């Protein structure tokens, strides 16, 4: 499926943040991750904050002047198996979380290019790409 317009891209990003938050919350429940609960809680909270920022961007940055069609963003390129972090081993969980960060970083980076006409939102996507890249590095320290 293609993301063909501004709202579609933002909807996908919001869903991605909420889904990633849910994965982190499930990971928190896994006994093997008990020593990392604080970090996981913080990351999930950050995902929810990102979702709010994106919702606000969708609400405040749409104007009829710049509702230009978007091309070349395929949902299939950003799919990641959900998995069940409650029944995974610690190393599996960390790998899974890192893959989610990679996916998010790549999506935000590539979508930012396509959202250039809506420069405020492109800027938000660039910032989120950077943030998610940094989060991936932090997750590497858990393994």
């Amino acid at each position: 499926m293609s993301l063909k317009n501004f709202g579609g891209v933002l909807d996908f990003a919001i869903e991605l943040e909420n889904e990633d938050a849910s994965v982190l919350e499930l990971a928190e429940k896994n006994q093997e991750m008990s020593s990392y609960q604080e970090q996981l809680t913080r990351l999930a909270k950050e995902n929810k904050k990102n979702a709010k920022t994106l919702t606000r961007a969708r609400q405040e940055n749409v104007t009829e002047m710049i509702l230009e069609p978007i091309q070349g963003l395929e949902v299939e390129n950003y799919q990641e198996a959900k998995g069940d972090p409650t029944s995974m081993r610690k190393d599996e969980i960390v790998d899974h979380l890192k893959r989610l960060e990679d996916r998010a970083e790549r999506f935000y980076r590539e979508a930012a290019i396509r959202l250039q006409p809506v420069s405020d939102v492109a800027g938000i996507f660039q910032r989120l790409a950077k943030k998610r890249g940094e989060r991936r590095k932090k997750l590497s320290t858990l393994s």
Partner: protein
Amino acid sequence: MALPIMKNYINGEWEQSKSADIGKVWCPATGEQIAQVPYSTAAEVDKAVSVAKEAFEEWRRVPPLTRARYMFALKEIFEDNFEEISKTLVREMGKTLDESRGEVRRMIENVEHSTGVTSLMMGSTLEDIAKGIDCRSERQPLGVFGCIPPFNFPAMVPWWFMPYALVTGNTYVVKPSEQVPMTQGFIFELLEEIDLPEGVINMVHGSKEVVNAMLDHPDIQGVSFVGSTPTAKYIYKRCGETGKRAQALGGAKNIVTVMPDADIDKALPSLITSFYGCAGQRCLSGAVLAPVGDIADELLEKFVAQAKSLKLGDGLDSSTQMGPLVSAAHKERVLGYIEKGISEGADLILDGRNPEVDNPNGFYVGPTVFDNVDKDMTIAKEEIFGPVVSVLRAKSLQETIDFANTRGMANAACIYTASGAAAREFKYKVKPTMVGVNIGIAAPMSFFPFGGSGESMFGTHKGQGHDVFHFFTDAKVVINRWF
């Protein structure tokens, strides 16, 4: 189950109209009826105007900053209900959810701009206009104003005017378009939350009888209208006869000039949205695409390829890029223009008459392009208000300027070019008063005036901007001398 019948809002109460004359409200994406709207009576208009007139006496005495605070509260409520307003709009009008969000954003921006009333309503003073004599000009509200908006922007257009009328101390009666009454109905439900004094704002649903009752009513001081040119003319004339202020915004036939030096790839997405956004149902839509010189073939090849790829469908589906037309009748009207283009000899290079859509009962017409359109053809002269592009191959910039200046309707005009000189010449000479340079939809934001020229606008004060504060206030000049 019977479909809901829209209610009027008069004096802070929801009232069922006593009229037995009921119209249908459709979902353009599915072709299903979704609500009913009463064609209210002149007596119901009279009731709304009477309570608004009574409320005016107190409301005008409320300090402007306090009136502005109602708008601050309203902005928050609109933000909280942003998605719900947008979705209601999609259901009854058909545009895409993104387009609806864009419209609701514009609506809120007008609420925001209106809160500047404490500066924007301010008068002026000059000491010693003669020795020992001072003069000041104050801006005063006038009383009850009315609004008759169109079907294509059911959320935004009433709010080009309404917040300004309210913050300047006037009271208001709005008649939503009978084709799309649900959005404003929902907005009025939200309005109740800010607890405006009763009678300050009123809504009467209906059609011609309500319009004529508003135009004839001696206690309505002015009317803001947006719609077709013939109706705008009618409104303006009738307001003149009954001594009302009027701002009557009419139709458009907007030209989009593409110069040989334009960057086609950069321009293309905004050209597509200019012609096909809201399925061409907006007064700022491109109608005539005028490539100048030898850029035409390459431009058209790319333009048609992209237009063909647009996904039509229900606006609530986030993958939809173009929604249906507002009604079956309007669809027939647009199809009639396509037939006219063919019969007058234009080349139909993209035919949108039978588009592939999930729900064939919806009122869909696909992207359509006519090449080699002559300036005297009907499709080059009349407003189609649909996704139909007339390509006028021009030899020079001046030819496109002449075209823009001879349509009668002079709403908007756009130019795509890398040349500052060409852009300046274009904006300097064209009659349309909303001009885009490398922008396909020249939509002024709330702090700039909105409205065209020629047969696209009748009246002296435009919507939005500073103009609208003048429309809703009268200048009272006081000359003082103290002995």
